[in-house]
Structure formats: C-alpha cells, structure tokens
C-alpha cells in the first residue's frame, strides 16, 4: 500500500436531496389478536367479579340450584340453566368461578404490589450501592430462589395462622392477607434481580452520571433519575409475575391452604370436585379453564410488554 490510506467515511449522510422519496416508516404495529383477546377477557372478568352482586344472571355463590325441587348435586351439566353446570354442593359453577375470580385477582394484585415494593427496593439498593449491599441482597434472593416456591408458600401459610393467634395486634391478618404476604414474598426475588440489573446499567448512563456529578444525593438520584426508567421493566415482570402468583394461589388452594372456608376460589373448586371428575367433568373443568385463561392473558400482556421494552427475563 503505497498511498497509506486510512479507512475513510465513504459517504457521510447529509440532508437528503429533495427528489428522494420519503424515508420508509414502518407500519404502526397493530395490537395482535391475542393481545386484544387477553385484554377483553380480563376486562370482562374484572367487570363481572366487581359487579357480580348486582348482575341478575349471576347466582349467589351459596345459592343452591334446584332440579325438580331437589338440590341439583352434579345433576346439571353446562347448559342454559347453569352455564358451567352445578357442583357437589349444588352451587352454580359459573357463579363460583366469578366469585372466585374476586378473591384470586385481589390476592394477585396485592401480592404483586408487595413484591414490587419490597423487590424493587432491594433491587435498587443492590444495583445502586453495590458492594456489601449488593452482596446481602444477592444472598437474600439466592435463599428465596433455593427454596422451591410452592414449598416455601405452603410452610408459611400453614404457620401464619398460629402467629396471628399469638400476636394480638395481628388480628387483621386474615388468610387472605397471609396469602398476599406469602405470594408477594415469592415475587420478591425475581423482581429484585431484574431491578438490580436495570439499575446497574442505568447508573452508568449519562443523565444519571450528570446528576451525580452535580452533587445530587443518592436518594434524589434514585427517586428522580432511576425510578422512572425502571417502570417498563417492573411493569413487564409484574404481569408475568401476576400470572405465576395466580397459578400459585390456585395450587395452594388446591392443597387446602386457600382462603377461609365458604369463599370459593378456583383452586378450591378443582380440589373439591376432582374426585367426581368422571361423573361431572364440568365442575373441575371450568375452574381450570378460568385459571388457565387468566394466566394466559397476563402472560400475553407480559410477553407483549417485554418485546415492546426489549426486556429479557430468562430467570423469572
């Protein structure tokens, strides 16, 4: 190479000439059919659950369905009389499913909120301060993940009633709140992990460095600069987490660790009716279906968000 040539910029793009066709804009992504279906299902479910008491076509959960004047135990299959059939207590399975949604969705939402607050807090601390804080938090998350989730949940829920009986000021801590606490605890580790990773990368970004170099205190940097940018990641994990929590709640109820007797939940309905599954499949099938559709719907939204915000969540 005689002329010693450095790799030149062959052409620097400058303002395009007027004759050039307009630059290509990708078509706005239409929301997929799956997303629309998922949102519709959840919306209808929430609507029915909230207004179940006022909607005429939904029976009360403890109302017995009569067939020829007698209690219709497992008599009615899915049909016009009772949409999802009747169960072993002659209750309308559809009504039970709707009232079950109430409990499940409430527990799911509160537990997720608990997980976000605790997990997010730990994650931000670990990611921002690193060093010892990071090590302590990572031991906490490692411990939470080393224990099979359902096992931890079973042990906790089974013991918390005893604690409540012992401690007078914990009177409000009913089974429902015990479940919220337990399931929320399960969501802490994955949330803390993803928030930690995001905080670590945000911490080195220019706008955060700028704020820090101006002498902003850690609290202010975290609150004003980092937190707002964590929302997409948290939201994404929250939806996926919600689906896992709802499934876990179903499993706990199935194992006899659900909310108080008398309140129907999907897991409990499955457990109560599974022994008659060959006679009255509907009493087990429809709670399963509701649980499945809810979990899928939250997953669809979570999946959509993770693609939108480009967040990978292999470990969750």
């Amino acid at each position, binding site marked *: 190479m005689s002329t010693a040539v450095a790799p030149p910029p062959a052409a620097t793009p400058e303002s395009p000439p007027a004759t050039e066709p307009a630059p290509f804009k990708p078509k706005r992504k239409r929301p997929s059919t799956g997303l629309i279906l998922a949102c519709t299902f959840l919306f209808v479910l929430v609507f029915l659950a909230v207004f179940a008491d006022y909607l005429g076509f939904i029976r009360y959960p403890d109302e017995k369905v009569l067939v020829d004047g007698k209690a219709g135990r497992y008599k009615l299959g899915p049909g016009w009389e009772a949409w999802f059939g009747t169960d072993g207590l002659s209750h309308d399975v559809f009504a039970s499913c709707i009232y079950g949604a109430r409990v499940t969705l409430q527990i799911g939402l509160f537990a997720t909120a608990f997980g976000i607050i605790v997990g997010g807090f730990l994650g931000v601390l670990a990611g921002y301060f690193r060093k010892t804080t990071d090590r302590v938090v990572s031991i906490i998350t*490692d411990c939470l993940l080393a224990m099979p989730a359902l096992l931890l949940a079973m042990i906790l829920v089974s013991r918390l009633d*005893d604690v409540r009986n012992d401690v007078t000021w914990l009177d409000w801590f009913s089974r429902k709140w015990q479940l919220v606490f337990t399931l929320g605890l399960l969501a802490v580790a994955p949330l803390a992990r993803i928030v930690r990773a995001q905080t670590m990368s945000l911490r080195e970004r220019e706008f955060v460095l700028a704020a820090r170099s101006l002498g902003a205190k850690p609290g202010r940097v975290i609150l004003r600069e980092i937190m707002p940018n964590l929302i997409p990641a948290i939201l994404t994990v929250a939806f996926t987490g919600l689906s896992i929590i709802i499934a876990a709640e179903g499993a706990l109820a199935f194992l006899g660790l659900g909310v108080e007797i008398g309140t129907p939940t999907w897991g409990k309905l499955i457990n109560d009716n599974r022994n008659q599954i060959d006679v009255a499949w509907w009493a087990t099938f429809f709670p399963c279906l509701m649980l499945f559709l809810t979990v899928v719907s939250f997953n669809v939204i979570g999946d959509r968000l993770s693609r939108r915000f480009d967040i990978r969540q292999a470990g969750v």
Partner: protein
Amino acid sequence: MRYFLQRLLQFSIVFFIVTFAVMILMRLGLNAPGDPARTLLGGTADQELIDETTAKYRLDSNLFVQYFFWLKGMLTGDMGYSVPNSISVAAYIQARAMTTILLGLYATVFAVLISVPLAVHQAYKRDSMFDKVGSGLSFVFVSVPAIVLAPILTIVLINESEISFGDYVLTIGGWFPRVGDKIYPWQDLGAHIENFFVPTLVLTLPLAAIYTRLLRGDMVQTLQADFVTLASAKGVSPRRVLWVHALRNSLFSFVTSIGTQLGAIVGGAIVVEQFFDLDGMGSMLVGAILSKDLFTVQSTAAILVACVVVVNLIVDLMYAVIDPRIRHMRALA
C-alpha cells in the same frame, strides 16, 4: 478451582440460611415450653413423654443449639421421628423418595428430549408454519400450571368419553388408570408406565415449553452470527451447522433454566402427587406441613434445598464446559 470453591462456599451459606429459616418457620407459634414436643407427639401425649422428647431433641434450648443438633442428626442419618406416621423420618423419606425422583427425572429428561430438537428446528425454519405452531403451543403450555393441566389431561386421557358426530361415535380416553399406584419399573414396567404416564406428562409439557422458548430465542440469535454463515460457506452441512456450530453457542439460557426450573418441578410434583394420589415426597410434605410434623418437614425441605443447590452448582460448572471463554475468565479470577 478457586472459583468453584467460592461458589461452593456461597451455596453452602445459602443452604444453611434456608434450612435454618425453615426451622424457625416451623417453630412459629410454638412458644410455650414443651410446645414443639407436644406438637410433635400430638395432643394426647402425657407430660412424661413430652419431657423426654424435649430432652432428646433439645427442644427447650435456643434455636441455634437445636439447629446444630438437627444438622448433626441429618449428617449421621438420624432425621428424627414422625409421630403421626409412627416411623423414623429417614425411613419415611426413603419409602417416598423414589416416586418423586422418578417423576422429576422423567420430566427433565423428556422435556429436554422434546424441547431441543423442537427449538433447533423452529429456529432453523424461523417464521415458518412449523415455527409459528411450535411457538404458539409452547406459549400456551408455559402458561398452564400443573393444577390446570392435571384435571384436563384426566378428562381427556383417563376419563372415557364418547363424542358423537351424527351417527359416528368417537370414544376417547380410558387409556390410563385414575388412581396412581406406586409401581416401579423394576417391578412391572408396563404397569409402571400406565401409572406414571399422565403425571409425567403434566410435569413435562410446561417444562418442555419453557426450555423450547428459551433455546429457540438464543438459537435464532446465534444463527444470525457471522460464524454460522462462515460454517455454511465452508461447505458444512446444515445439520452440522445447527447441531455442532450453533447449538453449543445457544445453550446458556437453556442450561440456566434447568437449574432454575428445579424448584418449579418440585412444586409441580407436589400438586401432581396430590392429584393422582401418588405417594411421593410431595404428598408426604403436604401431609407433614398440615399436621405440623416438624422433623419431617425440616428434613425433607433440607434435602430438596440441597438438591436445588447441587444442581445449580453443576449448572455453574456446565457453563465452563460449554464455553471456553468462561473457563478462561474463571481461570483468571
């Protein structure tokens, strides 16, 4: 080696913290002296027996001492006594463990066998009909908890149902027994398969779906790499490009998830054993937790946590086997 020792130490710490935490949790609400022993022995035990048991397991000393003696017992094979079942915990676990081990093993092995070819082929034929159907199915099965899949597979595969299309009546199901019997393969292979097929399927499908999604995603990325094109340009057959060049570079998330999914398998096994009345460690745990069978819960939990920890340690070593760059980095650390 230093790296390995570091990880070993880290995982041991986790093991001790978690097992200690389980012990504390199991003691919650048992504050009065003699309470733990009374719980262990059941309501009808007389004071003498309670005192004796308390002394034997040092249930009146502080928690650290109790933990120490429990751990010592664990290591020497004395895991305590399960009063509700009138059997030593060690023997109890021994009687139940095989079912759960088989279920977990089958689920993992079958899930890997299903997911790897599926994911590789999906990534290779990306966006084809095959890929779309595969992705859709794996998405659905990721979202199916065991508690949903178990009843549905029961309805489809175990219940005999007749579906009539006009005159034609199609009979499906009735292929498997409803109540699972603990029959091991070395006793009667046919009966074993009949009894374990549906429970295994319940555990396998969601697991395979998760593996497939992770592996497909990584594989798609790897297939866009230059070195994959180079391998083709060398004249390497597509099969070899996929299985030798691309696969090994795409295993990271997949191998990680084998470790992280172990907890989920245990959770699934608990539900499945309960649902199909299979006597394994899962159903044993449910019973023990509900009846406050302290030592059974503590010891079983410890064994499960140890499994999780060991598998994760193996996974950690696997990274180095798969990727020389990680080996290199660890050698420097």
